[in-house]
């Protein structure tokens, strides 16, 4: 989960809210594979057809604003999104994604440096983002020690299980 990631970018603007990421009409669904079928439906109807495991989302400020729905993080993770890079994140979305082990990096200025389909490489620990298609580089704000610990555990659920002495898998 934590380390060097390479992938293709989907690029969106500012204030992409959770209703656009995952519309309210599907909130009764819980299984991740069903939730993934509606990812980004209100902002990019082609996303579900095009997304492949390892792809990345790049966005402007306040990504994930609006509702507290964890579905917004679940739908991206279950779609195979490896990391979300945005100029800033709404706080509940931020917590939800990190809890699921979906890395997010705050990357000032990134929205104007990446086009849809660009190939990016991301070093999570160092916060280094390189656009391999254009050569542009961005330095992300460092992840807090606490967030890093959650990601290194593969999300908060394995971490809590480990803390409670329940973790059996490696």
């Amino acid at each position, binding site marked *: 989960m934590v380390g060097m990631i390479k992938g293709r970018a989907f690029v969106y603007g500012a204030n992409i809210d959770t209703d656009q990421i995952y*519309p309210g009409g599907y909130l*009764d669904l*819980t299984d991740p594979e069903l939730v993934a079928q509606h990812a980004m439906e*209100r902002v990019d109807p082609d996303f579900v057809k095009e997304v492949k495991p390892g792809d990345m989302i790049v966005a402007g*400020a306040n990504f994930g604003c609006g509702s*507290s729905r*964890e579905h917004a993080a679940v739908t991206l993770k279950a779609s195979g999104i490896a990391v979300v890079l945005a100029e800033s994140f709404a706080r509940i979305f931020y917590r939800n994604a990190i809890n699921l082990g979906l890395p997010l990096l705050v990357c000032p200025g990134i929205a104007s440096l990446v086009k849809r389909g660009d190939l990016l490489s991301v070093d999570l620990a160092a916060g280094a983002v390189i656009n391999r298609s254009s050569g542009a580089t961005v330095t992300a704000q460092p992840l807090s020690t606490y967030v890093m610990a959650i990601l290194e555990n593969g999300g908060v659920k394995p971490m*809590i299980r480990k803390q*409670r002495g329940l973790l059996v898998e490696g």
Partner: protein
Amino acid sequence: MHAVEKILARAAGREEVGTGEIVNCTVDLAGINDLYLQTLRSFAEMGGQKVHDPRKVVMFMDHFAPASTITQADNQKQFRAFCREQGIDLLMDIDQGVCHQILADKGLVRPGMLAVVTDSHTTTHGAFGAFGTGVGATDLAIILITGQLWFRVPEVIRINLEGNIGAGVYAKDIILKVIGTLGADYCVYRAVEFTGPLLENLGISERMTLCNMTTEMGAKTAYIQPDHVTFDFLRDKVKLESPGVTTDPGYHYAAEHSFDVTGLKPQVAAPHSVDNVADITEYLGRPINQAFLGTCTGGRVEDLAVAARILTGRHVHPRTRFIVVPASKGVFLEAMAKGYIQILVEAGATFVTPSCAACLGTHQGILAAGETCITASSRNFPGRMGHAEAEIFVASPASVAAAALEGKIADPAQYLT
């Protein structure tokens, strides 16, 4: 320290906390909404067996009340079973209304408390001098298991309100003006405190609307220092054990803004962003297919009262659907006793059971492509209330009622002087 820092410090068992610090806090009230079956899934996935303190947990059947699909019905069934198994007595079933209004009606959130609900508008409880904040399903499941959750101590932004409110202008207009001025992401990760002489003129209902809408500028929590308005409201409902906490003199705010509301016109947030705010006069005459009055933002007794005042002896425009949803059973009963329900039904309103209803586009008033809605709720994101090509204007309950009457966006002041 600021009052919100003192709340976190007390909850963390600490003398002091500092801005930016991450602290583990014991949560005083944890609320689950029926949208998020994942809460129970995450509870099980983390090995949860017994809820840490079921007396602190409230289960709300509000977003899907009553169920419209088999999946919704099954989710609610699982929640009811969980409450029975775990001894969670505070099950607010589909007759009760929207979580935040229920908590207010029953006096369940009091000054100085740390209240966490799986709903982004939990900032509403700043109206009671509490630290209210929304989280996702898995964070709430962690609270169910451990009784605690981590928080980053936020910076606090002070918003000072002063001046005289004109006819047809309400707290909703004021907070829309604030959001339009500062932007939808201005308060991300930060807390907002409202201060100033105007608060003296704002009752609990309007204070709840102010705090509720801070979510739409990204705030982690909102806060209003409890005063006689707060204590008078709560004393009718509960025995107050604590007056809450106060901010130390000389506390340094991250930013301070002052808004003079004298001369402020009614405001609207135009499609498709809550910070796309303008004077209502810029949109006068825009045809409206649906006017929506309700939710934790705009479905209280005072909101139904102003709608009834505007519509007494009048009728909703034939082109317009007027959907009214009391925010809670308590609101419904009080509005009924005061005659507002009779007036609104006679005027052509369509009533929906107390709940979140169409606010989040799940049921009970969904918009078709090309339709335009004016709403007393909080959000106008693309597709929020139905089709992505529907347009949503966010406004005050008075402006919603005036639009229902005229079939187009109208200035409510003419009906209120």
